[in-house]
């Protein structure tokens, strides 16, 4: 591996480590909020309206996937100077 590619790998790893730290902080706050605000409501829904719970469960996980995808892509772009890969 040449010195230029070594530098590139080091830069990528540093950007990824930084991304992990920022993402980790965001996610920790997020999921404690989700558990706090949605937990009780979801338990009620699961007990009383199981079909509605099933639909809400799918919508929640897809919604979270789309939002987190935006966040991770945005972070990758930001930390790697406009490139997402």
């Amino acid at each position: 591996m040449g010195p230029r590619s070594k530098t590139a790998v080091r830069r990528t790893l540093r950007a990824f480590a930084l991304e992990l730290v920022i993402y980790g902080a965001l996610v920790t706050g997020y999921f404690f909020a989700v558990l706090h605000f949605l937990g009780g409501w979801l338990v009620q829904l699961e007990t009383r309206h199981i079909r509605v719970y099933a639909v809400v469960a799918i919508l929640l996980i897809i919604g979270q996937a789309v939002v987190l995808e935006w966040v991770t892509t945005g972070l990758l772009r930001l930390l790697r100077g406009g490139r997402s890969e």
Partner: protein
Amino acid sequence: MMFFPISHAHVNPIYLIVVGFVIGVLGGFFGVGGSFIAGPALRLAGIDWNFAVGTDLAHIVGKSVVAAKRHRALGNVDLRLGFIMALGTIGGAEVGAQLIQMLKRAGSVNFVVSVVSIVIYLGISGFMMWESWKTLVLSKRQNPQRTSIARGGKSDESAFQHVTKAIQRWRIPPMISLPQSGVTISLWIILLVAFVGGLCSGFLGGGAGYIRMPSMVYILGIPTHLAVGTDLFEIIISASYGTFSHAIKGNVDILIALVMHTGAAIGAQLGAISTQYFAGPKIRLAFVPLPLIGAAIVIYTMFTGHKL
């Protein structure tokens, strides 16, 4: 430890995020839902198999959305094949979920699912190790000077190709042309492969990519990179259906799935981006240890009853 009231389980959320991240990387790279690790890992954390299966499916929906989007951008998704396979998978998943219900009523769900999963994981690992190793040795003998980089990251060969070609010659109408994958094959073969994948998905949990991705390569003859991307796309549809089916049977703790998915979202992107640097046989050979890890966790849990 955190209490999850839907499944009545106490689980460490950091453990769930780490499991999600690892499965995300593996899923993005291999095109699998990762249930062969997620199911046993949830079981190891003290969650009953029926909840492990259903919750894992929900988490896989989210992770596959992220990874499939990334693969689509890389040109690795055959939408036509994905939609056709989703039909067969949904049928199989429903049969699998019904079998789980039967076993739950009989009180033997943990034992039976454990034994079946061990047999399937070991079988897939053994076969893929043999095939990909043989393919790499054969291609080295034929082209000793050419490296996978010289051939391009997406190059693909298979030592099992003669069987794939024989299957493609079965002209049972209607025949389906898949220009993006470069294959023309009977609709019934696609549906059968998808049904078996769906059955495993409903019965063992996850998207069953561990059986569908190799089946797409070896039976349908789809190039590995396209099999990975298309499998992930198809998993979104089939795992959503599986999640709904399991949720109305009371087998999904969506709070656990949401926590796991926070780790998976970043891992899935990383895994998907990495595929462009590896040739097909190398991706398949690297896949071999994964079902073995799943089998080892199931065996460990079965014989020790240990929970984290």
